[in-house]
């Protein structure tokens, strides 16, 4: 009977541990995707800023010309939307971290992981050329 109890306890703890692994692996995978996608965006954005900065581009002498040079994909509004999306993503990631640390119930953790996936998609959708569907492919088998 003791052995049976021990085996049951181990099985239960393994199931719980597996879920923690899923949540952690899912979160880490999403973070990597977000970092990589944003690095691509940031590289292009900074190349645009360099090319449009009046220090390097004598044709740009006004604010309006600077905006026109950056284009609406990389202007201040677009860059701010990306910044806000990263902020929103990080907020959900912080909550997911807390849930994992306090050993919250799996449905709550799973829900937060889903919210993190949505936040990652929102961010990736703002990056020209990036495909938000990558998030579903990365999380297949986790959610």
């Amino acid at each position: 009977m003791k052995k049976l109890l021990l085996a049951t306890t181990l099985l239960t703890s393994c199931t719980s541990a597996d879920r923690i692994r899923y949540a952690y692996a899912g979160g880490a995978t999403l973070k990597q995707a977000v970092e990589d996608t944003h690095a691509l965006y940031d590289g292009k954005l900074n190349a645009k800023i360099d090319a449009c900065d009046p220090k390097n581009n004598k044709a740009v002498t006004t604010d309006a010309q600077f905006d026109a040079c950056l284009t609406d994909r990389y202007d201040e509004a677009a860059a701010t939307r990306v910044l806000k999306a990263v902020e929103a993503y990080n907020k959900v990631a912080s909550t997911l971290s807390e849930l994992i640390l306090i050993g919250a119930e799996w449905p709550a953790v799973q829900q937060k992981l889903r919210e993190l996936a949505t936040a990652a998609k929102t961010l990736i959708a703002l990056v020209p050329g990036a495909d938000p569907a990558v998030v579903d492919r990365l999380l297949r088998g986790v959610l």
Partner: protein
Amino acid sequence: VIREILVPVIEGIAKAISTSREALAAELEEIAKGVRDGKLIANEAFTRAKHSVDRIREVKEGLPDE
């Protein structure tokens, strides 16, 4: 005879369970450490994004509207 077979088997299972538990605990501790260290949070992306927005604003502030 049954006891001679069963005892080592049970001892073996107990040992395996104990080892698995230790390995599991170590792995979970490692995961918890990663979570505490912010390994799920895209801090690098945030820092870069903020820097880029600040850079655009600096250039714009130095230019006349028209």
